[in-house]
């Protein structure tokens, strides 16, 4: 029984890390650009498809799996930049409803485009051989790849932290989040910064999609399923909060995993229930900035 629980926890955490990557991008965009990007799930899906395609295309070349991930991330970031310039820029100053609708529109477009390009059948890819199968940790058999995902997720979290809080560009991002007018007076090219932030967010989503591909089949519909989870994470964690997204992803991942173990029928609803409770009791999330009416 104990082994099963640990196994589930690892499984849940690794899934949580992937959602974290997607949610981190979303909350970064939401916090800095004040835009809720509904299409984020679609970019995650794009990342997954691209990762699988590139990795399978380059089979034979050493490191093709990693190449798939890296290239997919970059392509998603570039695509994000395109979306930002074409679709988001015209509507920054408008009512949120228009942001919702345009990004929602992009979601639908991407949904069909992926079907047209890749068809509806699930795509699969395998992780490198040395990451396949289980490893034994004090007698318990745990899947190597899931563990790798957890470690990777934490690493990306730390890296983003350092980037936002220690690097020069991170400083610019923080500045633009707080007061774009002042930043532009100081010479920052704010529109360009916005595009770059959007690209980073989309890159993260693509990365998340690409790395989960070996574990779960890539098919249409993963866009909405990750979107809903990412929503829950950024609500529970707090808008714009990186730490909050991490914490919430861990909570949601664990809740999901344990839910499946102990109450499989209603496990589907646990994350929503947590979201509901948070919105009622503490709407700005666990680590967000408190807002008052």
């Amino acid at each position, binding site marked *: 029984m104990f082994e099963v629980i640990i196994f589930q926890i690892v499984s849940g955490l690794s899934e949580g890390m992937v959602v974290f990557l997607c949610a981190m991008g979303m909350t970064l965009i939401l916090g800095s650009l004040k835009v*809720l990007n509904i299409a984020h799930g679609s970019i995650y899906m794009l990342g997954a498809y691209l990762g699988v395609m590139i990795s399978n295309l380059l089979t034979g070349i050493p490191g093709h799996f990693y190449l798939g991930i890296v290239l997919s991330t970059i392509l998603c970031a570039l695509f994000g930049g395109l979306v930002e310039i074409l*679709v988001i820029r*015209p*509507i920054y100053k*408008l*009512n*949120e*409803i*228009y942001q*919702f*609708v*345009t990004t*929602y*529109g*992009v*979601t*639908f*477009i*991407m*949904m*069909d*485009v992926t*079907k*047209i390009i890749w068809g509806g059948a699930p795509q699969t890819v395998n992780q490198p051989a040395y990451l396949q199968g289980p490893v034994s940790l004090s007698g318990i058999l745990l899947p190597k790849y899931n563990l790798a995902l957890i470690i990777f997720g934490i690493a990306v979290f730390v890296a983003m932290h350092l980037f936002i809080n220690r690097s020069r560009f991170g400083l610019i991002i923080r500045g633009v989040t707080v007061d774009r007018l002042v930043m532009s007076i100081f010479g920052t090219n704010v529109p360009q910064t916005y595009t770059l932030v959007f690209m980073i967010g989309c890159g993260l989503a693509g990365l998340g999609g690409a790395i989960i591909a070996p574990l779960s089949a890539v098919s249409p519909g993963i866009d*909405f399923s990750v979107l*809903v989870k990412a*929503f829950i994470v950024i*609500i529970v964690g707090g*808008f714009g909060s990186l730490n909050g997204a991490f914490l919430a992803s861990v909570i949601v991942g664990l809740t999901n995993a344990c839910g499946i173990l102990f109450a499989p*029928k*209603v496990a*589907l*609803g646990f994350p*929503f*229930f947590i*979201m*509901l409770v948070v*919105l*009622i009791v503490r*709407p*700005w999330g666990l680590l967000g900035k408190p*807002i008052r*009416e």
Partner: protein
Amino acid sequence: MSEDRNSTFLSWRSGLALSLLLVIFYLLPLFLADNWLNLITEMLIMALAGAALNLLLGDCGIISFGHAGFFAVGAYTFGLLLYYRLASFGAAFLLAIAGVILFSLIVGWFLIRLVEIYFSLLCLAFSQVVWVIVSVWYSVTGGDDGLNGIPIPGLLFSAGGSYYFVLTVVGVCLLLLFLIRESPFGYSLHAIRDNRKRSGFIGINQKLHIYIAIVISGLFCGIAGILLVVLLHAAFPGYASLTKSGDFLFVCLLGGMYHFSGPIVGSFLYILLHFIIHRYTEYWPIFLGTGLTVIAIFFRGGVVGFAMEKYQSYLFRGRTRNASADREPA
């Protein structure tokens, strides 16, 4: 250009036009095949749901991402009562309405504590909870398979029967919504939308008014849900999905948020377009997505807003020659 509030629509001319329209609608079953009637019935139901949502969206400036929740609560309450033979048709109808009102009262109480994006997301959260409940509670609601074969009385079972029923109910509800929109309460919502801070200071208790608006909006959306069950004899978890909420929002945007007829026109167009495009290709989402994006960027007033603008500029163009005469001091 001034936004002349509905004065063009309340003249005796428009009253006549509307009556004519109504007569045409009532005569349609004599000319149309069943599947067309069903399509129009769907349009009417969507129009009611859209108009209900627009009370919050266009009239009050509040975005709800989860109106499908109200829709599904109405549908499932009604459907379950009939399916398990717990009530007659009339009683089920009334009880379902009561159920939606209760749901709206509870949800609204939580919602008014929040603003903006948090409000919208809490709406989403509630609708998702409804979705989870109806998806997961297989033994009662049939889960993903939904409730099928809900017993609808013979009179309303046919396409024509359900059409007349839906037409009448939707007609009455839209009339009520119109009256509410034209009442001081409706005006207060517009004030809250245009300047929330100011509306407080002229004596409007914003929270109370928004709460009432949520309940009214939820109620009529729930009625739309009940009507869909009457049409389809079934209820599915999809009634509570994010996609459904998105449909309602889209319909308001397409038609135009700032006019009463906007959501109605939007629904008819939306369902018609969906029907037509679906005949030729399965790739409807691309059209939907492109349409959404284009409208949000270029045609924010929606179809009706665009038409009104053209109409206004046409009126003014006709008057430029007399403009100076008009502006002489009286």
